């Protein structure tokens, strides 16, 4: 297997981009990544998109995007794993370069969500749950994570305030990221007084509906070493599944797919949780970040809430989590999220993260999950 590097990344301002179509959002972003890499010839593309068919009525997405990026007839593949589609696109690109099948692969993620109204978007996102045995009974995604939150609070004594502190921390980080959808600080009080969505989760516990894309260019490390940019290698990749119906799991507070994917990634990278300098994780809801840090082995089982309260995961903490602002503040265009996490880690490892730079960061991790944890991808990156 060849060693693989990320030589270019791109992301544009996220938000409610009413004046831009899916294809435009994607192409603008992909061009930024190409320009950043200094390469103009790619061999193939992988696109992560969760539900362009429901959100904008457009399937056959990979060919459409290859066409508008001026890259036909090269091979383009769209992959889907709900909100982990972007992470999956990265893994497919990694495998293709590592295998020697291609040298330069563009990995992208995109979602155009605001063409639907709120109830329709809630339905579209709900298709990532078990439609016959969860969706049928009127559960929503905030609802599924609310089920996890209540169980976590009951089992481990996690407090409502600790949940709020995840959002406060990520908005603080996001306030230093000009590309974030909501680059504003919030307070614990504003979270606790925001409108209830699915008890105990309030609107400020939830990631927003966002239009956006992200892209990265992968190539063999040997090729990257001849370029001008600092070389960021992908040293670990893990992918795992779990039941998509929450009720089929023994313990809904434990994200087994995240644990399994991380185990594979740590082992491939020959690293342990204590070796990681910073991570971007899937905080689609505040409770998710708490459960994810536990499953990644960064904190003990049940102590995710306490870790946030003690500042262990803040920008100046022992292991900064979601320096970009996370899904919470940066936005969550579902298919793009997994690739945007890579954009942040690469910028941090290159020392290009500006006001939110983690000093001396050399090793970073991304964790991207689908649905209520039914699929997860974990990647580990190291600067040479």
């Amino acid at each position, binding site marked *: 297997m060849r060693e693989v590097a990320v030589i270019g990344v791109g992301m544009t301002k996220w938000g409610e981009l009413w004046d831009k179509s899916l294809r435009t959002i994607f192409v603008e972003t992909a061009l930024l990544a190409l320009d950043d890499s200094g390469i103009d010839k790619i061999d193939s593309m992988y696109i992560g998109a969760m539900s362009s068919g429901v959100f904008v009525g457009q399937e056959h997405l990979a060919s459409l995007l290859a066409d508008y990026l001026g890259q036909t007839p090269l091979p383009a593949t769209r992959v889907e794993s709900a909100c982990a589609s972007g992470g999956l696109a990265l893994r497919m690109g990694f495998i293709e370069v590592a295998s020697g099948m291609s040298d330069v692969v563009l990995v992208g993620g995109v979602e155009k969500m605001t063409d639907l109204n709120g109830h329709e978007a809630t339905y579209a996102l709900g298709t990532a749950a078990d439609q016959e*045995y969860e969706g049928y009974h*009127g559960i929503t995604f905030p609802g599924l994570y609310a089920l996890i939150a209540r169980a976590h609070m009951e089992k481990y004594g996690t407090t409502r305030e600790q949940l709020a502190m995840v959002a406060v921390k990520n908005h603080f980080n996001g306030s230093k990221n000009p590309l974030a959808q909501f680059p504003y600080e919030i307070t614990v009080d504003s979270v606790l007084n925001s409108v209830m969505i699915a008890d105990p989760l309030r609107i400020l516990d939830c990631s927003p509906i966002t239009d956006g894309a992200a892209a990265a260019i992968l190539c063999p490390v040997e090729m990257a070493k001849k370029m001008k940019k600092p070389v960021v290698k992908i040293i670990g990749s893990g992918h795992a599944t779990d039941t998509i119906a929450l009720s089929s799991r023994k313990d809904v507070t434990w994200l087994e797919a995240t644990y399994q994917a991380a185990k594979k990634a740590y082992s491939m990278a020959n690293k342990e949780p204590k070796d990681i300098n910073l991570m971007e994780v899937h905080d689609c809801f505040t409770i998710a970040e708490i459960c994810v840090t536990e499953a990644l082995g960064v904190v003990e089982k049940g102590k995710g809430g306490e870790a946030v309260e003690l500042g262990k995961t803040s920008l100046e903490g022992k292991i900064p989590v979601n320096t970009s602002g996370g899904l919470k503040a940066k936005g969550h265009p579902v298919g793009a999220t997994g690739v945007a996490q890579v954009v942040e880690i690469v910028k941090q490892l290159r020392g290009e993260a500006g006001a939110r730079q983690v000093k001396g960061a050399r090793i970073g991790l991304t964790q991207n999950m689908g649905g209520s944890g039914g699929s997860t991808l974990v990647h580990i990156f190291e600067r040479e």
Partner: protein
Amino acid sequence: MPTPSRYWREIPQRYKLEAGKCKNCGLVVFPPRLVCPRCKGRDFEKVKLAETGKVYTFTIIRVPPQQFVDQAPYAVGIVELDDGVKLTGQIVDFHFDDLKIGKRVRIEFRKIYEEGEAGIICYGYKFVPE
């Protein structure tokens, strides 16, 4: 929006609570499956779910999907039945303040939602106080 065939083929589970019991290891799965998630066994017998259990976790949905807009707010939970199976469904006939993890409930046959314009009326199980 289920088509009639999509709705009809789930009726054994939604109306009659038909589950599968693995003949090899005894695990009860709902809905029925072709492969046992515990032992990979492929032989199952039909069993009926236990009709009582306790609330494992719950939430109150205040921002619903389109077809539930007229019902919100409503409670949805995961209930652990007395045969060990956990399943998701609405928890009704409780004051929200009385709803707690561990509360005893039983299954009752109820309307889940109605499609407009002479569409299907969708039925199934909900949980009520025992």
